[in-house]
């Protein structure tokens, strides 16, 4: 695994390497080289199984982290590739031509995070939601609890007490 990643870092500009397990490593690369790397890994290194791709919102840094996890079924190792893209007008190259299911992932990411994948099939069709006109829900600045309370008629009659506060009121209200 380590040797393989070392070899890989000669070919591609890998900035960070983390070995999570002996058969799982996380590498960070830049946005430009990712497509090249994906197709290299798939075609040459035998990472033929595309496990998943998803995004993580690091809102405090203003970036989205895209993670592609690839699996090599013969060597039984996993490689996760992390790319950081800017949160504003987030856009990423589409990888739907490499694996067929990627288009679905990208459709979901477009809907849930607002990351655009130009050229991906049906990417603008809504996937899970219907009639959504708020900010994409998986972004961290979307407050689901607030939205739920405003939209879905919270049931009245609920109310709670904090034990410490309640005891203060009951036992030593003036102190």
């Amino acid at each position, binding site marked *: 695994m380590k040797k393989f990643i070392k070899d890989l870092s000669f070919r591609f500009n890998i900035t960070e390497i983390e070995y999570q397990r002996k058969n799982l490593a996380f590498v960070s690369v830049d946005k430009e080289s990712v497509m090249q790397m994906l197709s290299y890994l798939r075609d040459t290194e035998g990472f033929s199984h595309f496990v998943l791709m998803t995004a993580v919102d690091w809102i405090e840094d203003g970036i989205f982290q895209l993670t592609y996890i690839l699996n090599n079924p013969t060597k039984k190792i996993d490689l996760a590739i992390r790319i950081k893209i800017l949160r504003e007008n987030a856009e990423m190259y589409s990888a739907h031509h490499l694996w067929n299911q990627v288009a679905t992932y990208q459709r979901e990411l477009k809907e849930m995070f607002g990351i655009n994948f130009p050229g991906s099939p049906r990417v603008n069709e809504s996937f899970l939601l219907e*009639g959504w006109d708020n900010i994409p829900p998986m972004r961290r600045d979307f407050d689901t609890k607030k939205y739920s309370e405003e939209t879905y008629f919270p049931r009245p009659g609920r109310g709670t007490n904090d034990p410490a506060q309640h005891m203060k009121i009951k036992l030593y209200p003036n102190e």
Partner: protein
Amino acid sequence: MKETDIHDKFLHEENKKREVIAPDGSIIEIDPLQDYFCDARPQINEPFKIKVIEKFLNWARAESIWVLGFGTGCGSIEIPPLVTPRFDAFRYGVQMRATPRQSNAFIISGYLSVKTLKRVIRSYEQMQSPKYVIALGSCTINGGMYWDSYNTINRLDHYLPVDVYIAGCMPRPEALLAGFMKLKELIKAGKAEKANEYIENLDWYKANQKKIIRDWNMPDYNW
């Protein structure tokens, strides 16, 4: 934005008013939402005037509950045990039907996402009265697990009239059977008239439904 505007925003192309050329060359203006659906405002269906007969009919309704086979949420996993050997709900006159037209009980099996709610409303309106709604689990009562989710409703009774609630997450088949027993009791006592309640308060229900279903795309009442 006003709510009607929101609904207009999501109106599908095929549901917009348009002009079509008929085979004979004449131009016909069509409004699909009006023309393609049965959207007459429903009428209240009074019980039979003669008490004895109504009582008899209610007995028949109670002993023959046809449930719409629409698994809306997790609770639908407990429907197969219910209709298979272990619990065998057939013994109690409970049967599953595949089409809303022939069903008269609707099991809302747990949480309803907004997208499903739209289909549930349509299915419910296609059912013929007297019809009953059984709400399964916490989610229908006060949101349950998904009380803070942006895509699931919290209180079913704001969108559909509910006859029987069953507590549980998820309720076991026995609890479901107990729910059916309760429903039977209500029907036999003539108290399961929620379908008429829905029609009486149609405007309130519609306002609630339209508040959250932005992609409305159907007439107000669609049979």
